[in-house]
């Protein structure tokens, strides 16, 4: 992770309900900001999908659709990068020992690909246990001059 984060030119923070509508909303917000930041169509697809997968994890697995739990969502565009943070209020999980979806024994599993896709699509991805509970993820995509 870059220690000295550049000053944000556009930021947005929201506390979202634990619903699939929030997943759509977060994706829409981030793709809009990414578009304004100059990312190309291919990167917009990747960023949108990574945000969607992260939000689904927060809403479905973290907060279990609870109407008492929120998803804390923030996105910031700084010169050179787009940074998204998503945090749930769930019980947390062991993300250090996730099964490999590409392993032969897991290839035909009907789930378990979300985090793998996020890592594939973003330049940086970090997960953190929150105290007293929950998980926070940070996704970063660097703006590359083409």
């Amino acid at each position: 992770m870059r220690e000295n984060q550049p000053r944000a030119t556009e930021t947005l923070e929201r506390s979202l309900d634990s619903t699939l509508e929030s997943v759509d909303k977060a994706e829409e917000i981030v793709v809009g900001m990414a578009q304004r930041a100059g990312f190309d169509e291919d990167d917009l697809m990747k960023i949108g999908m990574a945000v969607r997968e992260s939000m689904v994890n927060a809403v479905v697995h973290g907060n279990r659709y609870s109407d008492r739990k929120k998803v804390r969502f923030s996105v910031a565009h700084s010169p050179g990068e787009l940074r998204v943070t998503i945090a749930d209020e769930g019980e947390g999980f062991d993300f250090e020992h996730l099964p490999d979806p590409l392993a032969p024994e897991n290839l035909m599993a009907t789930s378990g690909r979300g985090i793998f896709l996020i890592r594939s699509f973003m330049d940086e991805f970090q997960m953190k246990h929150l105290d007293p509970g929950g998980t926070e993820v940070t996704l970063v995509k660097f703006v590359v001059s083409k």
Partner: protein
Amino acid sequence: MSVKLNTRQVGDVSVMDVAGRITLGEGSSAMRDALREMVSKSQKKILLNLADVSYIDSSGIGELVSGFTTVANSGGQLKLLNLNKRVKDLLQITKLYTVFDVHEDEAAAIRSFAA
């Protein structure tokens, strides 16, 4: 509805035209239910036409895999037709592209089903 499904018969092959978003929720569950119904009716040759799929997430990928397994376990075959770049890239990244029999031409796909 986020996904539209249209099923037609071409000989003994059931072609399901899928349009829209196959994402967690309405989209993926609609496709799952439609495939299960086809299997329950003993349809053994199923071709999913994904030409008009605008978006698919990991849940949608999971339903494709689930459908493939369900059809195979019932003694049938499920194949894919007209993958756009997004779907193709996702299947390649997840190493599923070689699991499915993927076609770009419907007539050829129909012919490829075992007798």
